[in-house]
């Protein structure tokens, strides 16, 4: 397994963070509608996993999918434009935050329904095995999806047929405000792998290097015909469940602050500096460039045309 350049991982996490900070602002301005779930605090997971994927590998994401889309290589402009509802968006404004599709880079969708993406990733892996391709599929999902039947059925199917798929559970402790410790009879996810007969591992999801190592090994294993794995990334979302939602007092300020001190970008910055892989000046420059790119992406979206209402019913069927 080749480990990706730690600097690239840093740049990618910055891109996600800064793009989402801008998206959050745009939401407050009323430029983004519907529900907008940010990935702030969890960037290390998407970046560490997707660093090992080719554009032909297939990612199936959740309602909290901006980070997965960006990490998989969807341009920030296209993501921003989609959330602004513009014709230049990934789905020309049809989808919005929870329906990001960019098959040209293997981003096979985010979903507004919890669960289905686990099954679809299993299916993409089925197709890759059937058609004897080298590609792998990845499903990202939250702790909330673990109590859903889709988790149980999808992982079992992947296990019995040895499919090339990686199941990445981003355990951020809550499903909206419902604690996983309340919703699940067992607070662990990775150990459930034994129930399905596949390898499982729990890691610090805020440490991008750790994510990268664990995911890299599991993806390589899948690519070489070794079958599926379950990776539990322990992480935390530091913003509200969705933009504009109050923090209804389901978690303590201490808990939030403790996790903010474990911010994946700050931690990785320290890692780079400690190992003299970068200077703080260069990292500050990237930061500034990243912010500017994010601002530009918003401007691109803001100035893009609205979709033509006459197109509202196209593509319902392939044959039309």
């Amino acid at each position, binding site marked *: 397994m080749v480990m990706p350049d730690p600097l690239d991982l840093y740049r990618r996490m910055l891109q996600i963070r800064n793009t989402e900070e801008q998206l959050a602002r745009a939401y407050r301005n009323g430029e983004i*509608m*519907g*529900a907008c779930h940010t990935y702030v605090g969890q960037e290390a997971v998407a970046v560490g996993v997707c660093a090992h994927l080719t554009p032909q590998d297939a990612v199936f994401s959740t309602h909290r999918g901006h980070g997965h889309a960006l990490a998989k290589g969807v341009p920030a402009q296209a993501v921003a434009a989609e959330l602004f*509802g*513009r014709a230049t*968006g990934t789905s*020309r*404004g*049809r*989808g*919005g935050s*929870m*329906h990001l599709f960019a098959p040209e880079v293997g981003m096979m969708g985010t*979903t*507004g*329904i*919890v*669960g289905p993406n686990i099954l679809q990733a299993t299916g993409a892996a089925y197709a890759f095995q059937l058609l004897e391709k080298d590609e792998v599929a990845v499903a990202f999902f939250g702790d*909330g*999806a673990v*109590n*859903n*039947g889709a988790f149980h059925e999808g992982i079992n199917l992947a296990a019995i047929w040895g499919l090339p798929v990686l199941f990445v559970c981003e355990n951020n402790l809550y*499903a*909206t*405000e*419902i604690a996983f410790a*309340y*919703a*699940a009879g067992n607070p662990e996810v990775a150990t459930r792998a034994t129930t399905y007969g596949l390898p499982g591992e729990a890691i610090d999801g805020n440490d991008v290097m750790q994510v990268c190592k664990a995911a890299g090994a599991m993806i390589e294993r899948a690519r070489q015909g070794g079958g599926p794995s379950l990776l539990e990334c322990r992480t935390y979302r530091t913003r509200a469940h969705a933009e504009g939602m109050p923090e*209804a*007092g*389901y978690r303590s300020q201490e808990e939030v602050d403790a996790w903010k001190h474990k911010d994946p970008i700050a931690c990785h910055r320290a890692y780079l500096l400690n190992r003299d892989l970068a200077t703080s000046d260069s990292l500050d420059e990237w930061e500034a460039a990243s912010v500017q790119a994010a601002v530009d992406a918003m401007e691109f979206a803001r100035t893009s045309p*609205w*979709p*033509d*209402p*006459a*197109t*509202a*019913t196209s593509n*319902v069927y392939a044959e039309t």
Partner: protein
Amino acid sequence: MDDTAPVLSFTEAARAGLTEEMERDPSIFVVGEGIGPRGGNFNTTLGLYERFGPRRIRDTPISERGFVGMCTGAAMVGARPVVDFMFLDFILDAFGELVNQTAKIQYMSNGRIAMPMVLRGCIGVGGSAATHHSGNYYPFFAHQPGFRVVAPSTPHDAKGLLKTAIRSNDPVLFLEHKLLMATRGPVPTAEYLEPIGRAKVKTVGDDATVVAVGAMVQRTMDAISTLEENGLHIEVVDLVSIAPLDIPTILESVAKTGRLLIVDEDYAPCGIGAEICVRIVEEGFDFLDAPVARLNGAYAPIPYSPPLEKALVPSSENIASAILDLLAQ
């Protein structure tokens, strides 16, 4: 209607009805995601967790099939579950339980097992909720024997119908359109129940009958206000009950007007408008001076972008011109 009655929002009225029933009957409990301390994504249970405690106001994991099947079993032994789906779209993951179990057990047990169960959720297009949070789905439940389905359009009916739904021994879908939840209206303080299966005539007229469902009722009222200035008298019927349908009320109106338009945000094919049309054709063909007309949402998944979303749903302008087309026939 009593004008001295306090004015409540649709959601407040429904919550008042739920609270009254839960006070009355300790076998009633509510399950759903975020309905506990948070009080529901749409405030459907605000304050009720503190009042009734965790066993009667129960936050659930994301296990729609699980808790619907669970509530089916609870109803079979005498409890009265209310399932709060937040968005009704999530009910589809429990469709097998509902169609093959909840709807059939009264019949298969020869009426020895009752199925008192309320299934409530937010429906409809609006606010760029996009395709996974904008569904209507009611024709599915109107087609399958065993369900009752109501879609109130006023706070008054929301309260009265939710109370009736909770007291019913049949599974009842109680549908709350996202654009109606914040609308306000008078709600009597004295207890009352609204019957399931009755439509309501909102305005009397003899030029044409327009049957509207849910959020389309107010939109139709807006549409006819302009027409009335031109001396047209339209009879608007709020369908209220989707299953069973109140055909007598519609038939009576059509007997007078000879013309019928059904305005329904939901998809046309095999929809509620089709069923109303065929019933009127079967029972009142000779009343019809013109073909029955339907005005529905366009036949496509619901998009996110406002101009696209808007293009799919009947506007008051669309409704007005559909009425004029009908009158021109």
